[in-house]
Structure formats: C-alpha cells, structure tokens
C-alpha cells in the first residue's frame, strides 16, 4: 500500500471513529442458549457419558482406521438420531437398548476386543442414533431445534475425539499395565450397565 493511500485510509477510519455513536454489533441477540442446552444435556447424566467414554476407549484399542471413522460417523449419527426424534417422536425405544449397549461396549473394552470395521462403526452408529434420539426427545416447542441438535452433535464430537486421543496417547507409553488399566475401566462400565439394568428391572417390577 502506498504511503499516501495509507494515510488517507487512517484519516478516514479516524473520522469514522471520532464521531461517537452507539457501538452496536456482535450477534448477542441470537438464541445460542439452545446450542449450549444441547451441549449440556448429554453431560447432565451418566447414561450418555458412560457409553461414550467406553466407545472412545474401545476406539483407542482398534486400528487407526476404525478410530478415524468413528470421529466422523459419531456426530453425524447423533444428528440423525435427534432428527429422527423430531420426525418420529413416538417411537418406543426400550431403555433396555441403551443399557444393553453400555454393557456390550464395556465388555468389549474389558476384553480389549479388536472388532471388524463394520461391527465397530456399526456399534458407534447405533449408540449415536440411540443417544441422538434420546437427547432429541428433550426438546420442547420453544427449543430452537437446529441449535440444540448442533449442540448435541458438537459435544459428542468433542467428547469422543478428546477421550479417544487421550486413550491412544495413554497407550503409547507401551507398558502393559496401561492396557490393563483401560480394560479395567471397561469392566467398570459394564458393571455400571448391569447395575442400571437391575435398577430398571426393579423399577418396572414395582
């Protein structure tokens, strides 16, 4: 930029700024509240966080292709599940599905199972669809659905990505106890799932 042009540009900018007027900008008036509502909703209880954790740890045990695809498929399937809750809100999905998935994923981690690509990605997709649907059901008439669903997908993506990377990084130490520690966490997840199934059965019986 030539010196003269620069001086003129600065002078014009100063002239614009020198006349006080209301400084009124930034998208504060948007309803991003529902985006953060979507972000926080899955984090408000263990039923989402526990299987996501197990799935991410399971991804760290698989080969890198499986982990990569999970990071791509998981948030998209969450969106798919949440959209399904909008289109078909009355689907009767038994809570037993969610609980069974927790147990299965936990056991897979405990066994350090190396799953075939379609099975692993299918498991990730199933979990995300179930949880997307479950979280989508929390939306009300007043909820901005787009923002809420984006929030759910965003938190799912961030959570699974970070936990997978942390677990991979943890395993890269090479010592055998590290894998044992991860497998132990899987058995805890499975135990949590079994306890939740027990509670569910007890509630249904009462």
């Amino acid at each position, binding site marked *: 930029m030539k010196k003269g042009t620069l001086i003129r540009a600065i002078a014009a900018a100063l002239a614009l700024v020198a006349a006080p007027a209301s*400084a009124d900008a930034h998208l504060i008036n948007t309803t991003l509240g529902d985006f953060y509502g979507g972000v926080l909703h899955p984090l408000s209880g263990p039923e989402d966080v526990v299987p996501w954790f197990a799935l991410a740890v399971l991804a760290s045990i698989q080969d890198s292709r499986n982990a990569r695809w999970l990071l791509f498929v998981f948030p998209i399937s969450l969106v798919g599940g949440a959209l399904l809750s909008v289109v078909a809100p009355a689907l009767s999905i038994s809570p037993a599905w969610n609980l069974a998935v927790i147990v299965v994923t936990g056991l897979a981690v405990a066994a350090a199972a190396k799953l075939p690509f379609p099975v692993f990605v299918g498991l990730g997709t199933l979990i995300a669809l179930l949880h997307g649907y479950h979280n989508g059901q929390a939306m009300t008439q007043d909820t901005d659905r787009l923002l809420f669903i984006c929030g759910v997908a965003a938190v799912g993506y961030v959570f699974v990505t970070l936990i997978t990377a942390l677990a991979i990084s943890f395993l890269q130490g090479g010592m055998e106890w590290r894998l044992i520690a991860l497998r132990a966490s899987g058995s805890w997840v499975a135990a949590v799932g079994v306890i939740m199934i027990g509670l569910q059965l007890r509630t249904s019986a009462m």
Partner: protein
Amino acid sequence: MIGAARNVFAGVPALLLTLLAFLGSHFNSAGTASAHEASMAVMTLREMAPGRYFTQWTMPPTEQSYHPIFPEHCVWNAPDLNCGEKGLVGQLSFTGLGSKQSAAMIRVIAKEGPVHAYTVSAANPVVTLARDPGHDLNAWLDLASTYINLGIDHILRGIDHLLFVLGLIWLVRGPWMLVRTITAFTIAHSLSLAAATFGWVGVPEQPLNAAIALSIVFLGVEIVKLQRGQIGLTARYPWFVAFMFGLLHGLGFATALTTIGIPSAVLPMALLFFNVGVEIGQLLFVLLVLALMWAHRTTQSMLPQWAAALPAYAIGSVASFWFLSRI
C-alpha cells in the same frame, strides 16, 4: 507443536468450522430481525417512600413469563413494591431466564443516594441486594460474578468473534506467535471496548457489523492464500492484523454493556469484570481448539487433500453472507 498447526488444522476441526459456519448463517437469518432487541430486560425501581417502590419495565422482557422474585419480606403488587421498614435488602432472582434472554437488570433509584444496578443472569441466577454496594464486599462479589458471567456468556454467543479467533489460530505458525497474536487481539479489543463503553468513540452499527464480517472474509482469503503457498499479510504479521481487527471486535463487544444502562459509579469495575469474562471465554475456546488439533493429530484423522480448502471457503462464504446482509 503448533508449528504444524496449518497442516494439522487443514484436516482437523473441520466439523467445528463447518458447525460454526452453519450456525453462523442460521444466527444471521434468525438474528437480523431481532438485532436491536435489548440483550437484557431492565426493571427500574423508584423509591417513593422509605421501603416503598414504584416498579416499571424500562426494557421489557421478550417473554411475558419473566418476572422478578423479590426478597421474601417484600410484597409486590405491580407496580407497587413494599419492603417495609427492612427495606430492599436480601436475595433477588428472576423466573424464566436462559431461554430467550440470558440476563435481567434491576435498577434501584433511591430517594437519596446513588442509583444501584443489579444484574441477574442464567449463570448467576441470584444476587444479593444491599443498600450500598460501594462498601459491601458481597455486593462487589455479586458485581464481579455477574459481569464475568456476562462476559463469558457474550463471547460464547459471539459466533462471528469465535470464527475470527479460529481463523487466527489456523494462520499462525508457532506457539509463541500464537500467544503474541491472541495477546494483541486481547489488548486491542480491550482498548476499544473500554473506549466505546465510556463513550469516547463510537461507530454506527451497520458499518461496524459489516466491517466485523469483512474481517472474517479477509482471514478466509488469507487462509486460502497460505494454502496456495502465498504468504499474505496475516501469515507474515498475524499480531498486527489481530490488533487492528481486534479494535473492531472490541467495539462490537461494547454492545453488551452499553445497552443495559449501567450506573456510572460501577461502570469501570463492571467493564473490568466483563472483559475478564470475555478473556476467560476466549481462552477456553482457544484451548478447546488446540486440544482438538492435538486429538486429531494423535488419532491421525485429517481431511483428505482435496477437502483441505473447504473450511476456509466455508468461513469466507458465511462471512461474506454476513457482510452482504449487514451493509
């Protein structure tokens, strides 16, 4: 670590970028019409007699269900509020905050003495009313908590600002340069935020909004240039560009404070706390992006080469859309 940020980033938070861009276009279409709505509902309480107040919405809430919950000993038969001999002290909260409006303010105009303002937000749902916040530690803590939360709230809702910060992280090479760039941006927007809040400078809304959008378009172009092997102004002097555009973004931040009518007595501290909140929010966002970059490197998940320029074009397209809709 961040030295390779450009390469890593080309494949990394593509989802984040796409999400921000997508949300951005949604906000713009949803938010244009309401661009002049108050960011807070404001109720003024004018003391008519000791302990008795006349209440009035000076900035009405967007939802009819919003209403204040006064201390238990106060009786509110709108517009009259009677707090008896005890006076207007105790805890104040609001119903319905957080869905459409995130904050509400009560301005108390005493028969004698200064005007006091109390802000209640979804993040800080209860404040303690005191006769003289100037000498009450709890009142000052309430003020700090309220405005820090408001600052965090404001930055996390400012999708255009977050998109600009994301663009900066993408362009910058090396951890120290990133620190310098973010610091320059912080200093700049703090300066202009203060100047605008105190009324020393001001820019009409439309050109300011458009210029903020244009700053993001500029970054999008710079990113594409960098991917083509051309070293642009931002890649060469990111801190300078961050500083110059930071001045613009700071003027935008001022909206949150200038629209709620904070009494001049607490304005400097409110501004300080608000800015602290903005910085906390910005730091959280930067750390999140860096963590995601690290995670994608660790999991070896990158965008394919053919899609590397996609996020830059997404940024540029959304920002161009904002620019055109704001002029």
